[in-house]
């Protein structure tokens, strides 16, 4: 089979398969929806009791994207570790396609699981808290959504390969959940954060993803933000592949693919 169709097929099959597996897991599925919803509910209650108005619209879209990051950060860090526990890591590493092509759809599927949470959050925002959510540019909103999922999935890929040598990768993945919610400006405008935090925000794809979604919803033209999110996603991917090569070469040489 030619290389490109084979890669495309592996990506598509891997994405579909892992999405199915995760929807049948109560941890990834049910909790993946509920967990960000708890925080979103608290945020809605806080904004309703406080500033209200436009800030609730701002918080609604930010809270909606929180789930995409949550489902990625908590699972991606230990994605390779999980294959190791299942005894499938060596088989996947020796498969004829590059291991990155196998791992990437896994982390994108994790991010895509966040769409359930996103939908639930927007519905609660609209029908429980009565927030009048705008959807000015439906097409660019859909593109922004896809760009956000793909770029956060690519970030998950980078986490997965970076943490592979740590047995406790899941704890590091969990740890990143709150900081990215904060630094990417999901619920708090970046202008409120200290100046030294900004550079961290700028190199995070979720920052631009949530901005793109907000801009598309309010009719502000999201294309620059979509480009930045996808561009950062591509950079994460390139760094991730380079890290993966180094890690796998070292592990193959030492015969420690199955160990950590």
């Amino acid at each position, binding site marked *: 089979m030619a290389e490109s169709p084979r890669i495309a097929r592996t990506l598509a099959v891997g994405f579909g398969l892992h999405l199915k597996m995760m929807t049948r897991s109560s941890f990834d599925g049910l*909790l993946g929806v509920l967990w960000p919803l*708890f925080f979103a509910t608290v945020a809605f209650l806080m904004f309703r009791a406080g500033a209200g108005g436009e*800030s609730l619209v701002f918080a609604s879209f930010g809270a909606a994207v929180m789930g995409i990051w949550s489902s990625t950060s908590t699972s991606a860090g230990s994605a390779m570790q999980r294959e190791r526990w299942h005894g499938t890591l060596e088989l996947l590493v020796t498969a004829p396609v590059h291991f990155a092509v196998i791992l990437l759809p896994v982390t994108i599927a994790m991010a895509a699981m966040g769409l359930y949470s996103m939908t639930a959050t927007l519905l609660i925002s609209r029908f429980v808290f009565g927030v009048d959510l705008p959807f000015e540019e439906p097409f660019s909103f859909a593109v922004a959504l896809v760009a956000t999922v793909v770029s956060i999935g690519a970030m998950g890929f980078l986490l997965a390969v970076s943490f592979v040598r740590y047995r406790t990768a899941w704890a590091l993945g969990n740890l990143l959940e709150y900081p990215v919610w*904060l630094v990417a400006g999901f619920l708090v*405008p970046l202008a409120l954060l200290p100046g030294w935090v900004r550079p961290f925000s700028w190199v995070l794809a979720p920052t631009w993803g949530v901005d793109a979604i907000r801009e598309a919803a309010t009719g502000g033209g999201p294309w620059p933000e979509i480009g930045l999110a996808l561009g950062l996603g591509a950079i994460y991917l390139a760094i991730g592949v380079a890290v993966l090569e180094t890690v796998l070469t070292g592990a193959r040489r030492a015969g420690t693919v199955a160990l950590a």
Partner: protein
Amino acid sequence: MTSLRIFFLGGLISFRALFSFLRPEIYIPSMLVAPIFQILLFVYIGRSAGLESDEFFVIGNAVQYAAIPCIFAMTFTIGGERFQKTLGYILVTPAPRLPLFLGRALPVIVNGFFVAAFALVVGGLIVGIHVPPSSVAPLALATAICAFSCTGLGLLGAAFGLLMREQAVLANVMFGFLLIFTGANVPVSALPGWMQSVSEVLPFTHGIEAAREIADGAPLADVADLLATEIAIGVVFGTVGYVLIRGAERLSLRHATLDRA
């Protein structure tokens, strides 16, 4: 004497055995760093929403984060034994059940108190809140009482741990409800009426309120009723949890389902 040994030594050994995985590389990010970020997250949301002071969120979230060690650990005292294939051995022993299960709660309360106290001190220093020196000891007491009452709720989770497989999901859901309902981030008075009614019977609600009053300089006597209510809620949840554990134990023995859920 045997009961005391089971309570203290058994509880400690059980905690060390079940939570041997809590090495520094897990304990530090999960128990010490994560609550600081939860505090910072809600401090900034609070500033953005123009709601309450930084102190409100530091105290609310530091104390509420005790739910992670307390609920997860208590739920895992049953699930962990099952996972390690030791649940059956424990439940066929003639050991009296009250010290057996309550003894497991003691190290959990101590750990929960430590986690909350650490978050309170470090979160407070980072955000820059001021607590009068005379309030430190009463604040520590209020935090310890909150850890106790939440462990009572955790005992209820442990009972459900005998009946269901997904204890991690259950513990996370309990944590989420406590985050919403206990006034950790939203003043209870700003919640809808039915939510206020729920919050009245949950761990943390009265303890967090007491801790905030203490931090504002109130003497211990002024919050004694709040702390007494918090203790009573912990006792009620703990008692219900213990009774349910005994019931679930009998059920699982009758149906030979002790090692599966």
